[in-house]
């Protein structure tokens, strides 16, 4: 597997771990389930080479979704999915 893909999956996995931790502590379980589901979907697509290229400006929608509702705004989950988005835009 390419290093870029490995690094990307690592960032996705980190986001999943944070979202799973939050799920047991917050009242946003449905939204967190959606985040985890989309993260898993992105991971599956990149592993089979079917992730649409960002061409430098498309996003995965993860940051848009999480930034809409998360409290506080500097929560680790938003930072984590932001890192996924940044890596996607830079390398895919």
């Amino acid at each position, binding site marked *: 597997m390419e290093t870029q893909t490995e690094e990307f999956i690592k960032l996705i996995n980190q986001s999943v771990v944070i979202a799973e931790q939050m799920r047991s502590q917050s009242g946003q379980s*449905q*939204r967190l389930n*959606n985040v985890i*589901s*989309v993260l898993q*979907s992105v991971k599956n697509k990149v592993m089979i080479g079917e*992730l*649409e290229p*960002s061409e430098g*400006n*498309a*996003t*995965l*929608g993860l*940051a*848009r*979704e999480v*930034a*809409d*509702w998360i409290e506080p*705004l*500097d929560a680790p989950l*938003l*930072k984590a*999915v*932001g*890192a996924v*988005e*940044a890596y996607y*835009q830079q390398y895919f």
Partner: protein
Amino acid sequence: MKLQSVSVSIGLGILSNLLTVSPSLIFNATQVVAQDLTATCPLPTEIAVTFLDSKCEAVTLKQPQTFYRYYSSNDNKYGRYLTTDKYKTNVDVIRNLALNQAWGNKATIRLKVTLPAGTTVYQGIVAPQTPTSCYPGGGQQTFIQDSKDPNIKWSEGKNLTVKDFSCP
């Protein structure tokens, strides 16, 4: 450098006078000048990325201003993303505001959201989301940091024309 700085100062001075004379122009005029002066977004990168090319402008409202938010259930009625765009159908909303249906917002209701004077809003264009054929973005996007400000007025929603939306 000094000459540039003086020119900017003079420009801002003229703008300031214009705003005093024409209060109705305040919001739009500020937007135009902000776009000329800053090319990046003064938000954390994880939020800036939601704007096209990570570009947005910060504008502090001089008077209350009404925006729109599109939603379909209490789960997505409130939030930090608003728009100045008024759409007639859910499909236009979903495409232009890049509301990926995986998140559950079917955009069937339009809400008026009035922000109080003094609120700082971050404005730009919606970035495309994958799959970009379904969610090209391109609509106006307004972001607020505190959607729980008790001075924000969230009006009753109005139903949109609902059409079938499918994404391969």
